[in-house]
């Protein structure tokens, strides 16, 4: 199979996937036990109010009709209106996108840096005290809840030094950057341990290979070996890990936004949940699912360039 074929096939595969994603998002309304409209309206809702919610959400129509109209509207960028504020879901999402994008991008960059540095140190010093302490840190990192890590950063760094804001997102580029440092660090504490596990194993394996020994014998410096021979393999592992971890990353960012009161999509989702605002919940779930699908697609395409053998056969 050629690369163009692979990419075309991979693109085609996303179409049924997107259809299924929208179906699952729609079904969220229908797993509510009992009458969804009544549940959304709350205990004190009048009969008319419940009927209005039913009307707005299209619950009085048959399921296939609901599905087709949801898909049709979504394709035109219409995800419905908030049942609380009446605003369009699309505009709510647009407003909330920036902090989440900041958190995801800065968190991911930091995670990759931390994971790469620790993995290289650990693999180069395999089975020494340094390696063991890195492994210990990794296990601790996997075992703590993300929001707790964030609170500990606030308690141990932000409160005593007063150097970092503990809530909010500020105004303008520099304030954004300043407010994102602790959240991004929390993100890296949550995400890099899993990357380290995979990367360390791969690097230990690579350092044992003949071509590394040969390069070393021929006088190539360790840095040059890392750059010339190992970086491509490391990049492959990292891309794969990002692809596998993108779901957890989104969850982690929801939790972090709540911890640091960042006004992003995750915080909007939690607010919508507490207000039983279903169109907003569905809209944000859909957007995150689209993002996951997009990242999976990009990762597969990148991998097909970095390691053609892995996917094209």
């Amino acid at each position, binding site marked *: 199979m050629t690369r163009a074929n692979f990419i075309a096939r991979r693109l085609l595969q996303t179409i049924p*996937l997107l259809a*299924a*994603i929208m179906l*699952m998002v729609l079904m*969220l*309304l229908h*797993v*509510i*036990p009992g009458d969804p409209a009544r549940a959304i309206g709350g205990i004190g809702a009048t009969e008319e109010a419940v009927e209005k919610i039913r009307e707005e959400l299209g619950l009085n129509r048959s399921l296939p009709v609901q599905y087709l109209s949801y898909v049709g509207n979504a394709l035109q960028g219409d995800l419905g209106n908030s049942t609380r504020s009446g605003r369009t879901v699309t505009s709510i999402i647009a407003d909330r996108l920036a902090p989440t994008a900041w958190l995801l991008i800065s968190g991911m960059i930091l995670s990759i840096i931390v994971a790469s540095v620790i993995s290289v140190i650990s693999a180069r010093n395999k089975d020494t005290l340094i390696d063991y302490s890195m492994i210990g840190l990794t*296990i*601790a990192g*996997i*075992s*703590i*809840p*993300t*929001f*707790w890590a964030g*609170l*500990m950063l*606030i*308690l141990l760094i932000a*409160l005593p030094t007063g150097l970092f804001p503990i809530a909010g997102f500020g105004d303008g580029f520099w304030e954004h950057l300043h407010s994102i440092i602790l959240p991004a660090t929390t993100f890296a504490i949550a995400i890099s341990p899993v990357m380290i596990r995979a990367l360390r194993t791969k690097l230990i394996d690579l350092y044992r290979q003949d071509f590394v020994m040969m390069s070393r014998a021929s006088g190539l410096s360790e840095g040059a070996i890392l750059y010339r021979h190992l970086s491509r393999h490391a990049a492959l592992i990292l891309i794969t890990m990002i692809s596998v971890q*993108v*779901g*957890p990353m*989104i*969850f982690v960012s*929801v*939790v972090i936004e*709540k*911890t640091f009161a960042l006004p992003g999509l995750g915080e909007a*989702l*939690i607010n919508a*949940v*507490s207000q039983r605002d279903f169109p907003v*919940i569905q809209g944000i*779930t859909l957007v*995150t*699912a689209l*993002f*996951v*699908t997009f990242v*999976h697609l990009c990762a597969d395409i990148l991998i097909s360039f970095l390691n053609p053998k892995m996917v094209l056969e």
Partner: protein
Amino acid sequence: MEQVQSTKAARTPLPGKAKVGFAILAIYVLLGVLGPMLLPFDPDKANVLQRLKPPSSTHWLGTDQLGRDFLIRLLIAIRVDIPVALAAAFFPMVIGTVLGAIAGYYGRFTDIIVSRAADMVQAFPVYVFLLVLVFALGSGATSFIIAATAIAWVGYARLTRGEVLRLKGQEFVAAARVTGLPEWKILVTHVMPNALPQTLIYFMSDVVLMVLVLSSLSFLGVGIQPPTAEWGRMISEGQPFLHSHWRLAVAPGLMLMVFGIALSLIADGLDEWFRA
């Protein structure tokens, strides 16, 4: 082959880290069962006059923002967090392992159905979906276990399918087939015993994940509902008092962390033990 493996395992002692892990786990179980019985407090009843008291001879770890004894809440939460996380990993393990075994062993349409369903779940931001699903079903332990099962079976199914595919081609399976055993019996008595160790190790790390997800959901307000003591919820309730009463947010996090480390140690130890 499985005979060879089991005698080997019987000879090798359990690695130290697994023993440490099991010891910590035993302490948690003891504390969770006995601790609340020995402390003369009501873990859920608010007593505003006693709120935010520092540690004393009556309240060893002080009281929380509603005047409840903090220690008893910390310990009684063991009865919530651990069983719920175990259940949320156990049901997907059973379902995922059965589906993965069938898909891997019988192949064809069973494999297509299971693999496609797994792809579908994995295309989702699964924990966000879990959050929304728990909310839609109504917050609480049962909803959490149902939603976790709907999502986490995929990991077990993939793992088991891979193991079964690998084992299916091995000689001892061909040998069993020659003896005329029915296929399902070969799968159950010859293939699965060799696939299960990996499942068990995965289960351990899944329990850690589930206890963290559960506490995160409670932190976000959709998990275990108040007044029931649950570590994530307790951390969230302690957040406003971070600068004045840090113990309220720190202690439940430590309980979660030590539990997670114990299970990670068990998982790593068992992995070495099964490989030995």
